């Protein structure tokens, strides 16, 4: 088309990639052209299937293309072939993109948001290509937007409600995993503490226990390493979760963790807040004085019940209490504190009289951390407190760390829920999107297996001469037409019929519990409604028509792709017969059966 595009293609694309790049992603025969280009190159089709058929077993090229849709499949092939071509000469250039891609595929699969192949493709392209290449190669906009957002390090905000947001989020999560994968091969400069915390947050987001998360990291790592190896690149070392944590442990020992924590809680404790409890005023006065002199903040209480109240009000780091006191004694106070959320982490030092040492076992059983005999020697008391302070600081760090992780988890969890909706909705028309439609069809397919008496039918819809509308009135009018048709479809579908937009000018209706005749009637209802509808706006006034293909599940169909394929043939026949009509699979006789 234009010179820059040709240059770019000449620069980086060749062989299969070059053929794929020349396919119009929106063209009617894009899927067939892609299938032809991939079939002609055994390496390319193997690579494509390897990524596209995650967990689905040995799927055919055709069904993989069907479920991905031509635009995404085309972008994925471009990315993979570019990578395959360049990895031979410049393996380092594709280590990162592939790590991120396999990580994104795993994260998307685990969260259950969106399509894992789309996440893989966006990840691969975001780190392996330049923004201008993404545009020139006509990568689907949501993938290109997510990829360039990731390239520029911009986070998707709440305001970004388009279809690319979920991909951006997944790329964000996947970055942590990709960092972990690469950390072992290139350990210098890695912030292990940060990496370990990131992995911990991700583990929470993915709702995995430690061993399942470790297994996920391993499986992603091996897919990544295997793929690189098959491309002829050196096989990278794959780290285990344990090895990241062990290295992070070394870092924990110094102050890296404290630095990473929130300000305030991160500063090492200078003076502790201590609750001193004694019913004997002289001892209490002296205790207070000793502690203040050592730089601590002191609150006091003269009996156990008061102490409990003061502790809950002032949240002390440590409690120093006399054992024998009227009402609530020191041990009962400790037991009561240990039962409360706050009191579980407090450092509890018990003051015992001489002759009470033989009972300290009881004190430790009650949850006391340490004891000092009275009358106390200030030096010994402060030394014991220093030991306690290490425990307190460690607990503060663990607690602060937990808060940081929980905060991240809460934030990301909320986004994930929002995104789950966004990921299933077509941004332009607000109808469910291809992903949703395919998932819905799959569950219907499973529910109506052999032996089921419930029929299942689908309706495939294509707007007639849509390209003509776009070309003569512009894309804004084209978008308006899509929205209006979507509205008409939504308004005219009935219970059990769910309309979705597959992409471009293609729509899809799953008709649960309907046979072909019932679906044909529904299709006719929709066709007539669209034909009647007048679209007005943006200086445009007029109508459009739709070609409708109907198909019912038949025993000889191996999977849901065969059902779609049958409806696809019917739409093709409707177009061939002059458009604006409904044709069912059985009208085609043997054509549908051979699908």
């Amino acid at each position, binding site marked *: 088309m234009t010179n820059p595009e040709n240059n770019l293609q000449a620069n980086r694309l060749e062989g299969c990639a070059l053929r794929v790049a020349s396919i119009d992603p929106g063209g009617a025969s894009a899927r067939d052209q892609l299938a032809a280009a991939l079939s002609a190159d055994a390496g390319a089709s193997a690579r494509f299937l390897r990524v596209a058929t995650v967990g689905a077993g040995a799927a055919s090229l055709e069904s993989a293309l069907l479920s991905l849709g031509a635009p995404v499949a085309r972008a994925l092939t471009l990315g993979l072939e570019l990578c395959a071509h360049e990895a031979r000469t410049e393996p380092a250039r594709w280590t990162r993109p592939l790590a991120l891609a396999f990580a994104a595929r795993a994260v998307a699969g685990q969260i259950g948001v969106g399509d894992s192949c789309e996440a893989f493709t966006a990840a691969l392209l975001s780190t392996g290509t330049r923004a201008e290449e993404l545009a020139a190669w006509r990568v689907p906009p949501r993938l290109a937007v997510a990829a360039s957002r990731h390239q520029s390090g911009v986070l998707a905000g709440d305001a970004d409600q388009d279809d690319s947001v979920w991909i951006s989020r997944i790329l964000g999560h996947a970055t942590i995993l990709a960092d972990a994968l690469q950390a072992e091969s290139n350990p210098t400069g890695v912030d292990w503490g940060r990496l370990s915390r990131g992995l911990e947050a991700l583990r929470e987001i993915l709702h995995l226990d430690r061993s399942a998360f470790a297994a996920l990291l391993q499986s992603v790592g091996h897919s990544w390493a295997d793929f690189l190896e098959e491309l002829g690149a050196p096989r990278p070392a794959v780290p285990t979760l344990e090895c990241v944590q062990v290295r992070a442990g070394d870092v924990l020992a110094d102050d890296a963790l404290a630095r990473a924590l929130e300000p305030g809680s991160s500063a090492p404790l200078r003076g502790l807040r201590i609750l001193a409890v004694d*019913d*004997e*005023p*002289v*001892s209490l*006065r*002296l205790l207070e*004085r*000793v502690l203040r*002199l050592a730089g601590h903040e002191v609150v006091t209480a003269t009996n156990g019940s008061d102490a409990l109240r003061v502790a809950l009000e002032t949240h002390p780091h440590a409690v120093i209490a*006399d054992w*024998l006191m*009227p009402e609530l004694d020191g041990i009962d106070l400790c037991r009561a504190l240990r039962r409360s959320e706050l009191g579980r982490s407090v450092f509890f030092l018990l003051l015992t*009289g*001489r*002759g009470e040492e033989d009972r300290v076992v009881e004190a430790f059983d009650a949850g006391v951390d340490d004891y000092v005999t*009275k*009358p106390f020697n*200030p030096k010994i008391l402060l030394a014991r407190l220093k030991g306690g302070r290490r425990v307190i600081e460690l607990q503060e760090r663990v607690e602060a760390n937990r808060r940081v992780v929980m905060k991240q988890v809460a934030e990301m969890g909320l986004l994930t829920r929002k995104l789950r909706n966004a990921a299933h909705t077509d941004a332009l028309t607000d109808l469910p999107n291809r992903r949703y439609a395919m998932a819905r069809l799959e569950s219907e397919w499973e529910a109506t297996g052999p032996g089921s008496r419930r029929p299942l039918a689908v309706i495939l819809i294509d707007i007639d001469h849509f390209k003509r509308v776009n070309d003569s009135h512009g894309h804004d009018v084209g978008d308006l037409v899509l929205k209006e048709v979507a509205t008409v479809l939504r308004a005219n579908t009935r219970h059990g019929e769910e309309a979705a937009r597959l992409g471009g000018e293609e729509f899809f209706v799953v008709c649960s519990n309907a046979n072909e005749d019932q679906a044909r009637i529904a299709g006719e209802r929709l066709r007539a409604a669209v034909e009647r509808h007048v679209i007005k706006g943006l200086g445009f006034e007029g109508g459009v028509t739709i070609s409708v293909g109907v198909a019912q599940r038949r025993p000889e169909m191996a999977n849901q792709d065969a059902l779609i394929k049958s409806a696809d043939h019917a739409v093709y026949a409707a177009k061939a017969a002059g458009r604006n009509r409904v044709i069912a699979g059985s009208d085609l006789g043997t054509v549908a059966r051979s699908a």
Partner: protein
Amino acid sequence: MNGSKPAGDQAADPIDMQVIEGLRELGGQDDPGLLVEVIGMFLADAPARIRDLELGLASGDIELLERAAHSLKSASANVGASKLSSICRQIEEIARAKGSERLAELVPESGQAWDEAASVLRSIQG
């Protein structure tokens, strides 16, 4: 202080002057009244405990005896009244074991020790 007796013979001394020195040091520059304040607190609180000891012995209220002895034991130790503290410890141990032997001797001894300690402390208080 007083410079009168050598340190170490604590049991015989009504007040261990090392403890008093320790309290003076603890007060230091910024809390010089600590020693006097603590002695004042002790002098104000102890008579009630002494009365509780006598009352407990007379009425056979062993728990009152134990509580009073426990409290006076640590309070007196804090101001260096080692002899009083040591007597209180014995009373407390016997009372805790629900025994009664020697209490009739020890309680009056504690009264004596208190009188001696109080007079030294009042002189320190000035």
